[in-house]
């Protein structure tokens, strides 16, 4: 993500620009990937209408293809695109003034100063991730408006039909204007809770990409990339927030192992069998620095603790040398401040390596009645692993078969089926 200093309005760069069609198309595609959210957020401030803003931004990107071919790629593509989109918006607004006065508009604060383009992305993400919207709508709006995904792309990511996703997005936009969800960064009093809602959305994008709920691939790299981009954006916009630092660290430290999670044939490789030499050391270094910073805040945030756990794995020279007691201790802290059945399940797994499968199984047995875990495939997988380690093969097979009922990811299914066959 480029810094905000590259976005202010200003004279275009001189020099000899590359105006070949390919170079221009690449520049427009790169600007789409990096700057969509910035351009849309700044345009929505003017239009006070998300649909109109989207239309004008789309139009600006289309114009860029021809304009940049003629006069070169501007030095500040985001500023160029924003200016074009906002001019188009103002033009349309003047023309349709009479009609538009009847429509409900986005609630915005006083008009902005005229001579620079402020970064409005925080307003946009807090509007998209407003708790008055359903979580699935928050995720869809964020991917659509901040990341510039098409409705079809968002629909594919969340395994629903395109008309269903289109209806979901339309309904959410109608609620934003109809109910008066403001286009504003929340007051400091509400901020922590609202940031938490944004982090939940970004984490959901990440987890959906990290282990795809279904399909042929274990990882959906596009979604992981979007989640990482959103987390980096939040880090730049809310640099002092420990929750944001924790989430970015969590994503970096977890995704650092991406290359080794499947083998050359696309089969699942367990953490203990992964080639640690291939982990992304740069991401791990960045993540570790962020974890240290995030953990200074008391009480520790949810993602800071999850990141710290990921860091212990990343730093272990081998599976055998993993500090399981440290991991169990971190899960204890996580459960104290941010209790959840899934954290309890993960703690049970850590206990099974720190103290033995028998102890892990005892912890797992205490979780059988948790409704949140009733259809969670990792319970069966964890149980199957512990039972297999204890030599209780028949029971292990049943547990793995149960896990198979709850995942539609083909890579995970193949792995579980192989475990069943081995027993």
């Amino acid at each position: 993500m480029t810094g905000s200093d590259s976005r202010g309005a200003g004279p275009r760069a001189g020099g000899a620009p590359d105006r070949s069609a390919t170079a221009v198309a690449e520049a427009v595609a790169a600007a789409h990937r990096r700057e969509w959210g910035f351009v849309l957020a700044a345009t929505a401030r003017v239009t006070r209408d998300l649909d109109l803003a989207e239309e004008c931004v789309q139009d600006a990107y289309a114009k860029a293809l021809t304009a940049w071919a003629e006069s070169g790629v501007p030095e500040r593509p985001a500023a160029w695109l924003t200016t074009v989109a906002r001019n188009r918006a103002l033009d349309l607004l003047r023309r349709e003034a009479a009609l538009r006065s009847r429509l409900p508009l986005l609630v915005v604060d006083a008009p902005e100063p005229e001579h620079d383009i402020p970064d409005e992305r925080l307003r946009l993400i807090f509007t998209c991730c407003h708790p008055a919207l359903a979580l699935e709508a928050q995720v869809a709006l964020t991917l659509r408006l901040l990341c510039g995904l098409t409705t079809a792309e968002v629909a594919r990511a969340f395994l629903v039909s395109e008309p269903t996703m289109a209806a979901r997005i339309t309904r959410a936009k109608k609620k934003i204007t109809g109910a008066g969800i403001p286009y504003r960064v929340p007051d400091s009093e509400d901020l922590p809770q609202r940031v938490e809602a944004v982090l939940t959305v970004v984490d959901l994008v990440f987890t959906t990409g990290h282990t795809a709920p279904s399909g042929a691939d274990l990882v959906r790299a596009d979604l992981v990339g979007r989640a990482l981009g959103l987390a980096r954006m939040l880090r730049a916009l809310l640099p002092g927030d420990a929750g944001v630092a924790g989430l970015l660290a969590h994503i970096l430290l977890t995704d650092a192992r991406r290359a080794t999670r499947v083998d050359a044939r696309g089969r699942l490789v367990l953490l203990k069998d992964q080639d640690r030499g291939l982990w992304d050391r740069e991401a791990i270094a960045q993540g570790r620095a962020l974890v240290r910073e995030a953990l200074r805040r008391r009480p520790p945030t949810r993602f800071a603790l999850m990141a710290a756990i990921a860091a212990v794995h990343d730093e272990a020279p081998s599976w055998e040398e993993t500090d399981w007691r440290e991991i169990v201790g971190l899960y204890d802290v996580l459960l104290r401040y941010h209790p959840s059945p899934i954290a309890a399940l993960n703690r049970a797994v850590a206990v099974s390596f720190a103290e033995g499968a028998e102890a892990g199984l005892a912890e797992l047995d205490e979780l059988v009645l948790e409704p949140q875990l009733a259809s969670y495939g990792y319970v069966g997988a964890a149980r199957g692993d512990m039972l297999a380690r204890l030599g209780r093969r028949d029971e292990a097979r049943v547990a793995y078969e149960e896990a198979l009922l709850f995942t539609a990811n083909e890579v995970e299914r193949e792995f579980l089926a192989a475990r069943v066959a081995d027993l």
Partner: protein
Amino acid sequence: MSKYLVLIYEDETAYATGDAALFQRVMDAHNKFGADNKDAIVGGEALQPTPTATSIRGGVVTDGAFAETKEALGGYYLIEAADLDAALAIAKQVPAEFGGVEVRPLMVFDQQ
């Protein structure tokens, strides 16, 4: 500014079986809410319980509320607020210890 209707839904049995002290406590809470938010409140009323309700559907008159729910509509406030965040901040203060509230923006019709 926009208008929002805050609908109060509560379990009626709590009031049906409540004593004088409970009614006094609830009344005090509403009075305090009214005083704390007097600039934002446009109107508000309490309703008699659902056994007094009469419904008409397709011209047919029947005894009872339109929809049977555990928590029934028992009253409302009409408030004015700059946006949903401001409306929710007020709605959170509405006393509803035996249930909760629903916040609905009012429809705005073209004045032309």
